[in-house]
């Protein structure tokens, strides 16, 4: 209840500030439309925003799922081999250091202007935080734990699946929460580069036609969507905390 109230108050303060700036500087609506214009376009054409938001939401969610699975799998594969980590880490880091903007044209060329290229870009952004966080989870095992497990003389695979993998899951969860906050970048950049739908597409389209109110409305919807996806990810990954055994 308090959280809802806090959200409402923050929103109200931001809207007032926004309206105040427009009014004080007497800005024309094609530079900065007032909140009332943006709300009115959202109110009169909801189907437009829902249609494009659903496309972007699908890209982000699918990218989160695929990047999460991929990131977890890569971390599991290299967890036990410092040598493999030394060999793969530079490639993993480069995949993050290269701006997704730079890769976008290539991915467009290879995967086309449809869903696949946006999925690839979102996956690319998501998988690294998940891999890095999961790996740090594997490394976080205190020596008292590894000594105890060693003394039990278990089989390697059983130790991995019954002890080490579950213990790394809370770390993977926090990686996925970080990834969820940056995943919209991949989807929206992909849509800017070339697409027939999605909030990024809608923004470019509106911008080209001088419909600044639609541009801002799409931005507002994107903010809401990003928050929603982060909230859902947060809720889903919190259940992994039951595997939390040490800090």
């Amino acid at each position, binding site marked *: 209840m308090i959280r809802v109230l806090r959200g409402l108050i923050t929103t109200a303060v931001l809207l007032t500030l926004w309206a105040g700036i427009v009014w004080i500087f007497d800005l024309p609506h094609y530079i900065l439309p007032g909140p009332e214009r943006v709300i009115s376009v959202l109110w009169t054409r909801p189907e437009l925003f829902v249609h494009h938001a659903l496309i972007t939401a699908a890209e982000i969610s699918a990218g989160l799922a695929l990047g999460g699975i991929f990131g977890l799998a890569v971390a599991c594969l290299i967890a036990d081999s410092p040598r493999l980590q030394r060999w793969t880490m530079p490639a993993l880091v480069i995949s993050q250091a290269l701006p997704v903007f730079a890769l976008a044209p290539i991915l467009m060329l290879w995967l086309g202007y449809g869903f696949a290229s946006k999925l690839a870009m979102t996956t690319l952004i998501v998988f690294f935080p998940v891999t890095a966080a999961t790996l740090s989870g594997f490394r976080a095992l205190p020596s008292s734990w590894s*000594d105890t497990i*060693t003394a039990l003389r*278990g*089989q390697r695979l059983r130790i991995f699946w019954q002890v080490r993998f579950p213990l790394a899951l809370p770390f993977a969860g926090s990686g996925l929460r970080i990834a969820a906050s940056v995943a919209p970048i991949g989807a929206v950049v992909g849509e800017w580069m070339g697409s027939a739908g999605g909030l990024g597409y809608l923004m470019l389209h509106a911008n080209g036609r001088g419909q600044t109110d639609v541009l801002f409305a799409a931005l507002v919807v994107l903010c809401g969507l990003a928050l929603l996806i982060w909230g859902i990810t947060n809720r889903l990954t919190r259940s992994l905390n039951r595997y939390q055994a040490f800090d």
Partner: protein
Amino acid sequence: MLTIRQLDLSYPGYPPLATIDWSIGRGQHVALLGRSGVGKSTLLKALLETPKPPQIQCETTRIAYMAQSPVLLPWLSARDNVMLGARLRGEQSSETAEIADALLDRVGLSGLAARAGGQLSGGQKSRVALARCLFEEAELVLLDEPFAGLDRSTRIDMAELCRELLVDQTVILVTHDPRDASDWLEAAWVLSAQQLSGPLDLQAFQDDRELIRALDGAL
């Protein structure tokens, strides 16, 4: 049971530590005292290794280890934590579950077998860890400050339990605090950066100043 000849405890890149000779007879219960950083953990690790370094001759491969923290998997029940070794070796059965339940009874946790490890108190976790040690039916039991982080009365209870349940095993208890152990251990050895000395009479350490002198290698 255990004979160590000229084992160097030094760690590469750190100041040199003692090179030790040590021998412990079957069924003996001894304390190993020492300040942190004198190589106690290195020694324990060497004892847990398979194969062991050639300087260590041990009559058994059945070695149980209890660490400073209880090391319970919070999502597994107390019973499954006790038989974790069997689970990890692929030996679990209804029989091992019965053994685990019986051991939980013996450490005073009857009725808590199904409770998740994460929902036990600190003292209860230590009891589960002790039951897991017993489950392994080891001949040599290494206790690495197993009572650290427990309050005084729980420590006394745990020491009492160890005395009762570890009669048949050879036990090495690594600790800072000989008062944990004085009523059930037979002898103490003191490891300093220079040497391993002992056996010393544990009663000698009832005075803290004596203990500090011993830990510094002055006795």
